[in-house]
């Protein structure tokens, strides 16, 4: 047993980097996948719609912890090889992000009136051009507040990676708590760091939403 010191704060900063890496991985891979899910979910082709809807239901219907364990233990079963923890954990967060962001962006696309698509078609734009220049920008504006809100969920969600042994901020808190026998101090500081990350995003999301409601 030792007392809480500077080295522990340093370990938090070090672990925070991995929390940020997890968030970036989830957004980098989950974002494009979410866009794909959102567009197929609103596609004119019914089976594609059902497939996307089913995937979204499935991802939103199991705990994030379940997704993490599924990939952490599942990758060796499916592929027959051991993968680094970051890959397994990254895949779980990618799917999680795709499922929730895909649903948020679907809402944004559906909130744009169908007449806008038709107007684009009348101007001779292709479906892709209609989406790219007319629907997309409006949908993005409307879905930005919940997207930022989801970002907060994602940052908080990365704490679960600690459970499969991935060393990020929450895991560092556990290690320090166990080493110093000062759970209040260790978890208190960890909670404060998460709070400092999430609160600005929450406030930003609220401002965006107020601005959107004011504009209408």
């Amino acid at each position, binding site marked *: 047993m030792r007392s809480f010191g500077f080295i522990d704060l340093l370990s938090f900063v070090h672990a925070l980097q991995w929390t940020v890496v997890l968030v970036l991985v989830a957004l980098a891979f989950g974002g494009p996948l979410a866009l794909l899910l959102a567009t197929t979910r609103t596609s004119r082709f019914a089976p594609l719609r059902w497939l996307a809807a089913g995937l979204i239901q499935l991802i939103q219907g199991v*705990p994030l912890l*379940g997704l993490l364990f599924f990939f952490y233990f*599942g990758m*060796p079963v499916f592929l027959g090889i051991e993968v680094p923890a970051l890959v397994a954990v990254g895949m779980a967060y990618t799917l999680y992000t795709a499922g929730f962001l895909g649903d948020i962006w679907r809402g944004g696309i559906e909130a744009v009136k169908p007449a806008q698509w038709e107007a684009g078609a009348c101007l001779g734009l292709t479906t892709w051009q209609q989406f790219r220049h007319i629907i997309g920008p409006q949908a993005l504006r409307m879905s930005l507040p919940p997207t930022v809100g989801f970002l907060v969920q994602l940052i*908080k969600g990365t704490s679960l990676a*600690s459970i499969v042994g991935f060393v990020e901020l929450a895991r560092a808190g556990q290690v320090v708590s166990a080493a110093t026998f000062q759970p209040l101090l260790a978890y208190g500081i*960890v909670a404060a760091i*998460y*709070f400092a990350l*999430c609160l600005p995003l929450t406030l930003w999301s609220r401002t965006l939403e107020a601005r959107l409601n004011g504009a209408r």
Partner: protein
Amino acid sequence: MNFQQLWRYQDQFVEGALITLALTLIAAVVGLAIGVAGAALLRGGAKPVRLAVRSYIEIFRNTPSLIQIFLIFFVLPAAGLKLPAFEAAAVALSFYFGAYAIEIVRAGLDSIPKSQVEAGQCLGLTRWEVFRHIVLPPALRNVYPAFTAQFVLLLLGTSLASQVAAGELFHAASFIESRTYRSFEVYAVVCAIYFAMVIAFKALFAVIGLAAFRWPIRR
């Protein structure tokens, strides 16, 4: 892959699922009570009270539920209050859900135009009658989808209680895993059970919604 071995542990799966349900329902009921009380304080409380409620909301919504569970489970004993795992998790999840519930209830109350309340007062209704017959029904209808969505997130979030060994479904899974060494199979089954519970609740909420909110919307 081998699911055969898991049949012997049916009872553990069922017991875990029941504890998960109990945890969810306790946190939902207590959290909703916090939500109603908190929203009332935000509306009518003195300024320091409102500030305290707002701080509570922001602190619980902007920190991970897992850390909150750890704080309550590991720190309260130092203050002389030793809670068993299930109770600690129930308290932590109730406060977490409560923070979201306040915002949901507040949004519901805010969604009713002031002119409707004034119209009720003009008809000579008492404050309670205005609330009961004019504000409450449409407010409930407006926030029903948000509440049910948050309930589903709560159900999935109870899995974090496994980290303090609260005996719920995920904790049951780690027990079965330690006996069978069939990690992937155990967690696949557990995911399927959660999924079935989520679908069942969504269907139940849809039926309740259809039955309770049948009057047409006029705008």
